[in-house]
């Protein structure tokens, strides 16, 4: 089916005769198979068929049945071995016809896996593979598809034989070295296999495979592949994996939290948004019901966060931890976990105006097996301001994104801010930092090229995550700008990476951060982070932004709200003038339970998108997720699935999108789904 040039059949009669012969062979075979005939002749016929057409899978099944029936009669070892020999012979002939036949490869595996029989020539298998894989490929580019060194069936079969013969991983690692160094640097299969072997040897702490020495050795080894054959991809992927491992291999889990360590959280009651106060704090949290979220953000997805792994040293009630994800049970892997602490003012601890809360974490493991340097703890102080119970007594005014915003120039802000944006670097990083530094020096000497610039950008970002002093961002942004020009086909990829670097740059230092921080006077000076008009296409650094309550992302290039779900404190969000094409792209917002104000005006939100790229990232019957039993309306289904979870939403702006969202039908739909809505498209609703 593949790789045949389009041309006229030079010999149609011969082809027709071949067809007839094959048809006859197939019919005879089927007759034998259905009648369970396993005579010598019948078995030979099946061999003839398979050699002509190895894809005729039923014949492989037949041969297995015949094999079993012959074994039933005889258990003499030499006879068994000769039967096995025969099967292997048929497989060999079939493979000569089609080296990529699944049926043939599997039959060989099946035959050699039969329990109770040890086939003495098993070691032979490895040799046969070596001979096959190492054939120097002299063929033209067109026939790259038959390159033995890239035949994945052979590599899979190799892993099978290695396990059966208990060949050591160290020996196999040497084999990949031979393949890469002697045959070709561009054997991706060998690099892939190397990554598997190296990971396994490090994980089981084999001799000579501690992370530091292994990484150093592998980096030196892969340099030769990258620097000599820049345009060939295989080495780059291995190199980038090594870079990732340099930062992550056996590193402890890191996390950030809200409230953060050493912070003072002022819990303010339901009237807090209407009150005016001269003292403003970065850390005031307005609580309508007396509860507030305790947020944990891990740098890798973890499961098993519960009240047994996270203990709170205070009189606060037993907590229920939930992952911020569409699935809610404790076995789900998630980076973000939330528990709601309820402050019942009748509890003794709250008769005091101030309470210290200590949170201890232990026994949490990521899906990649990384632990917290346990036990880890942080302490924050709760100050109760006003009574917490009761409903808000005043009507709220419409929130504007352009008026009533003041710069935040409070010096006291720096300390608070610093505690939020400092993502604690770990000790024990020294060898990693050194390794990255060496690599950066290497890559600076390379002439301009796409891959050189991309790797340098990644190296500089990696150094930033470990040193976090913000010096590299200017260069990183320039590299991505260069890449957008150099490799326009992947411009959107570089644009996304550019956005990530830009947000990290802004959040790397309190000085740059405070230029983007404002206070919104009309809501008791809650802190507003303004990242508008920055050509951003995705969010990043959310671990540093957990404290943000009002976020302006307008006039950017977002096509999805992915990543915003971690910002659990958000009560006002502006996504107007972006590139959102559907409500399913806003799925992440479902998790923002505090959201009161949402502006998605002037996007491209359609009623029905031809190709919806966020369809499988939300809960729906298509992905067998989402709660059953809740009636989902036919029209505005996507909108319903997002809006129904926003219980506190008071203000929504959806102007400037598909016209179906502009009429009376949609507004009555919204009023029904979001009962607390007061403002729609700038107009006040009266129920």
């Amino acid at each position: 089916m593949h790789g045949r040039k389009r041309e006229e059949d030079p010999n149609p009669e011969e082809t027709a005769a071949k067809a007839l012969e094959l048809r006859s062979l197939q019919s005879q075979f089927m007759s034998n198979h259905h009648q369970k005939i396993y005579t010598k002749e019948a078995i030979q016929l099946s061999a003839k068929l398979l050699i002509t057409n190895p894809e005729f899978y039923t014949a492989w099944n037949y041969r297995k049945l015949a094999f079993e029936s012959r074994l039933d009669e005889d258990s003499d070892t030499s006879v068994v071995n000769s039967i096995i020999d025969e099967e292997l012979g048929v497989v060999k002939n079939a493979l000569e016809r089609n080296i990529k036949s699944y049926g043939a490869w599997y039959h060989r595996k099946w035959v050699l896996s039969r329990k109770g029989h040890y086939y003495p020539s098993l070691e032979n298998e490895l040799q046969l593979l070596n001979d096959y894989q190492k054939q120097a490929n002299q063929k033209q580019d067109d026939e790259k598809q038959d390159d033995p060194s890239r035949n994945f069936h052979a590599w899979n079969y190799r892993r099978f034989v290695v396990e059966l013969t208990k060949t050591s991983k160290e020996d196999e690692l040497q084999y990949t070295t031979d393949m890469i160094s002697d045959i070709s640097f561009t054997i991706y299969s060998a690099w892939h296999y190397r990554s598997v072997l190296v990971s396994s040897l490090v994980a089981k702490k084999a001799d000579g495979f501690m992370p530091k020495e292994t990484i150093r050795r592998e980096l030196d080894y892969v340099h030769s592949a990258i620097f000599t054959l820049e345009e060939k991809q295989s080495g780059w992927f291995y190199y980038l994996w090594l870079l990732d491992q340099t930062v992550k291999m056996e590193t402890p889990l890191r996390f950030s939290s809200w409230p953060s360590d050493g912070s003072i959280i002022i819990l303010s009651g339901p009237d807090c948004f209407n009150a005016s106060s001269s003292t403003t704090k970065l850390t005031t949290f307005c609580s309508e019901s007396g509860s507030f979220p305790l947020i944990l953000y891990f740098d890798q997805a973890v499961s098993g966060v519960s009240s047994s792994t996270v203990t709170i040293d205070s009189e606060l009630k037993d907590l229920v931890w939930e992952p911020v994800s569409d699935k809610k049970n404790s076995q789900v892997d998630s980076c973000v976990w939330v528990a709601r602490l309820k402050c019942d003012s009748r509890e003794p601890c709250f008769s005091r105006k101030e309470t210290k809360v200590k949170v201890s974490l232990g026994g949490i493991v990521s899906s990649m097996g990384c632990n917290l340097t346990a036990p880890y703890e942080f302490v924050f102080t709760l100050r109760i301001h006003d009574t917490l119970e009761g409903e808000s007594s005043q009507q709220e005014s419409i929130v504007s994104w352009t008026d009533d915003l003041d710069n935040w120039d409070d010096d006291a802000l720096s300390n608070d801010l610093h505690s939020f944006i400092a993502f604690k670097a770990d000790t024990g990083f020294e060898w990693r930092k050194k390794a990255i530094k060496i690599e950066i020096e290497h890559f600076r000497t390379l002439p301009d090229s796409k891959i050189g610039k991309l790797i340098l950008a990644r190296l500089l970002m990696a150094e930033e995550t470990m040193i976090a002093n913000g010096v590299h961002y200017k260069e990183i942004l320039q590299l991505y700008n260069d890449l957008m020009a150099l490799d326009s086909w992947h411009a959107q990829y570089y644009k996304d990476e550019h956005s990530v670097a830009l947000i990290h740059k802004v959040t790397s230092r309190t000085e740059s951060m405070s230029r983007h921080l404002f206070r919104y006077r009309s809501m008791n000076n809650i802190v507003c982070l303004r990242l508008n008009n920055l050509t951003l296409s995705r969010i990043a650094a959310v671990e540093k932004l957990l404290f943000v309550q009002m976020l302006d992302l307008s006039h950017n290039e977002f096509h999805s709200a992915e990543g915003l779900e971690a910002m659990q404190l958000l009560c006002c969000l502006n996504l107007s003038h972006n590139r959102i094409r559907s409500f399913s792209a806003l799925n992440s917002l479902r998790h923002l339970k505090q959201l009161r104000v949402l502006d998605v005006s002037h996007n491209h939100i359609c009623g029905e998108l031809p190709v919806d790229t966020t369809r499988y990232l939300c809960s729906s019957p298509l992905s067998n997720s989402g709660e059953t039993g809740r009636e989902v309306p036919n029209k505005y289904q996507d909108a319903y699935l997002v809006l129904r979870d926003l219980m506190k939403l008071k203000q929504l702006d959806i102007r400037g999108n598909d016209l179906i969202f502009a009429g009376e039908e949609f507004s009555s739909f919204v009023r029904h789904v979001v009962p607390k809505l007061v403002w729609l498209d700038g107009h006040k609703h009266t129920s």
Partner: protein
Amino acid sequence: MADKLVADKHLRYILNLMAEKKKESFESVVMDHLRMNGAYWGLTTLALLDKLGSVSEDEVVSWVMTCQHESGGFAGNTGHDPHVLYTLSAVQILALFDKLNILDVEKVSNYIAGLQNEDGSFSGDIWGEVDTRFSYIAICCLSILKCLDKINVKKAVDYIVSCKNLDGGFGCSPGAESHAGQIFCCVGALAITGNLHRVDKDLLGWWLCERQDYESGGLNGRPEKLPDVCYSWWVLSSLIMIDRVHWIEKAKLVKFILDSQDMDNGGISDRPSYTVDIFHTYFGVAGLSLLEYPGVKTIDPAYALPVHVINRILFTK
């Protein structure tokens, strides 16, 4: 060089393949055992071109049912042994014709569920070959039949995740190299079970977008390989499911597919000037569907069926 999709020619190409007279060509005889797949490729292409009415529904459906085995599974053609590969195609064909109701759903779903192994993986048939392709098939098929709870979904998902590689891609079994076809299967299975959060979307998305060849605009299946129209499906659908399709140059890919058409006789081949076949015809049209080519109905990237078909099945009680 082509500048449009010659849908009428492809229609005639497919109808010819399905007609009686072509049955005895050498190509037909040698592919006899996977006629069920061929029928699915041909019929889905017709459905995407809104021409499903050109075939006899009764003829197709009754032939499909002759391929069902007493175990509940379907074979590639009458007389052959059952296998999940053909069971999925059979169910998909019946879905196209809105004829799932003729199935003994219990029987078919038990056949598939019975092939799940202890470690969560799936065998293709009673002979035990394990491959993540079969995980995808089981999950896709059971989801269409609304019997996903017959298998251990958690174990199935964990097994798939254990096949994740250094590049964010997936192979056919743990430790196996990433390949776009396997990636489609694993990402599709994770999508259908609501587990895409277990995919490193940025890492995989970048590996996938690097499949695009700067000369032809086509996509290959893994590094250092030649571009091929079938990857317009496997790479593209994977990118769409993880919302990273904006990382490739779509217009150039459209051109590559159009250039691979046989403008005279219809059909699409693996690359320009090569031999056409039904497999590449389907993947070319499906790829154009995902690229929003006008005149082609939308295909669902996970179930590989037209969106209106899968919506009809899964969104009604």
